């Protein structure tokens, strides 16, 4: 029996004559204990989907059931089951200390401070916030604020946890730490987690299933181990001097999964998606042989939908 069931979820924003279809008929079921990643580029509709599930945004159409009950009609029941860390670093009270924030979020769930005391210290320990227990949240680092926000959601002790872009804006070290916390501490508690991210590594590392969305629609809904190839894909932007002739362009196109050229005034940007990051050396080899001067290399976000569709086509 699915603990979260979302059918034909649609959200259309109308603003001064402009119509924006943020979410376009999304349906999925999530079983208890599943950890599902909602993967998509910025603006794909991840946040709107999660906020509809939390009843913070009214859907235009569709039905959402949390533990078999309609979220719109029984929102208070839903909030017994659901806690959420929403996008951004301002889910917590900046003028309150670590401990005060945790107490407040426990209180919002109706827990008394005395009963929850032990749990607060346990979470403070787990999240490495012991030294900052009486520090106001605004004086914490961005990473610590995010850890505190997650701890505040956990203190509510709900079966379901929504994490909207939990690693957005964090440095590499903290990103890894947050991923480890989700994987090793939170998932062990048997919670059902829906995590949204535009970062493939986070989803691959933490989730057992991925829902890829693009432009408000579901592109894929697969178990992680069935789409292992997908997560190996890397994309880089090579900035090179001058124009590139069509022959070389063809050569490069044939060798890699996805290639795009952007001709600029005095240089060319080549965005290459490859199945394996080791293939980066092949690109360098080609550039070297053709005497093309390399100006820079950058890791960029791959086009999830395109890659997924290409990989599916290849399998067939």
């Amino acid at each position, binding site marked *: 029996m699915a603990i979260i069931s979302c059918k034909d979820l649609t*959200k259309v*924003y109308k*603003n001064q004559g402009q119509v924006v279809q*943020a979410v376009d008929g999304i349906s999925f079921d999530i079983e208890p204990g599943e950890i599902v990643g909602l993967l998509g580029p910025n603006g794909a509709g991840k946040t*709107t989907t999660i*906020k509809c599930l*939390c*009843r*913070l*945004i*009214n859907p235009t159409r569709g039905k959402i059931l949390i533990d078999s009950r309609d979220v719109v009609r029984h929102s*208070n*029941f839903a*909030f*017994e089951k*659901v*806690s*959420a860390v*929403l996008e*951004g670093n*301002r*889910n*917590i*009270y*900046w*003028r*309150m200390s670590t401990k*005060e924030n945790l*107490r*407040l*979020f*426990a*209180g*919002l*769930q*109706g*827990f*008394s*401070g005395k009963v929850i005391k032990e749990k607060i210290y346990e979470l403070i320990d787990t999240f490495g916030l012991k030294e900052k227990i009486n520090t*106001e949240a605004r004086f914490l680092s961005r990473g610590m604020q995010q850890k505190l926000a997650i701890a*505040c959601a956990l203190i509510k002790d709900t079966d379901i946890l929504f994490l909207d872009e939990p690693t957005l804006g964090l440095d590499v070290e903290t990103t890894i730490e947050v991923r480890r916390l989700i994987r090793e501490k939170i998932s062990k508690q048997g919670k059902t987690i829906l995590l949204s991210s535009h970062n493939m590594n986070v989803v691959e590392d933490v989730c057992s299933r991925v829902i890829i969305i693009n432009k408000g629609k579901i592109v894929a809904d697969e178990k992680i181990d069935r789409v292992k190839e997908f997560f190996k894909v890397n994309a880089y932007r090579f900035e090179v001097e001058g124009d590139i002739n069509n022959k070389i362009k063809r050569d490069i196109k044939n060798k890699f999964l996805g290639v795009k050229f952007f001709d600029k005034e005095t240089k060319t940007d080549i965005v290459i998606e490859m199945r394996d990051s080791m293939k980066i050396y092949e690109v360098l080899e080609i550039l070297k042989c053709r005497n093309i001067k390399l100006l820079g290399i950058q890791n960029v976000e791959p086009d999830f939908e395109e890659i997924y569709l290409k990989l599916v086509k290849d399998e067939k």
Partner: protein
Amino acid sequence: MRSRNWNLFKTIFIKEWISLKRYPFNTVSGIITVYMVFLLFFLGYKFVGGSQPSFGRTTEGFVVGFFIWTYSISAYSILAWGIIQEARSGTLEQLYMTPLGYERVAIYTVIANFIWSLVWVIPVLVLMMITTGKFLHFDLITLVPLLVFTISSGYGIGFITAGLGLIFKKIQSFFQILQFIFVGFIVAPIDKLPVLKILPFSLGTKLIARNMMDKIPIYKMPPGELLILIVNAVFYTVVGFSVFKLCEKVAKDKGLLGHY
């Protein structure tokens, strides 16, 4: 369920206290600003030597009027600003996600507000009494219920402003102006024009003045007047909260609850 409610109330009560404590500048500057405005009016009145002070028939009346004004803008602005501030910062969405319902959060916020407002309403009142040399009568049994019903309308207006603030972003100037419109409500000549009793604060201020100046206890006040006061309070609170709920629906439709 009852103890969960109590826990939620305690949580909101402490939350309001912490925000008062952590923004001491706002509290202190609030006290100073209101006191300066008072001084300006009071000294102006004295110098001109007019027989018609702006806030009622005597200096005492003037102090009572200012006391109610201080309390009303405190109630109104802390509520309205608080909600809008939380929408901006993202914490409002978290408040909405309580299983006990946001309505309860709102009610408890109002109660906490009403009590914590005293932290700066009382100092202003004491300063005013020292400045004028007129010490007013304090009968809490009469004063507390009259204040509750008088200030309620301020919360009603606060909810309307907060609701509009969720949807329309440039509403700040409207906030400021409204605080001065309150003065008009407080000094409304309800003796000459009884229909003005329907305004917020007008009748309540008069009844409170009767108690603080003439020492008339609540049980000796005309029941008809008290009834009008209660109906007035309920009306503004219900209308205010209903408008807020309507705005909340629009905000949820447009996805504005957490996007300032």
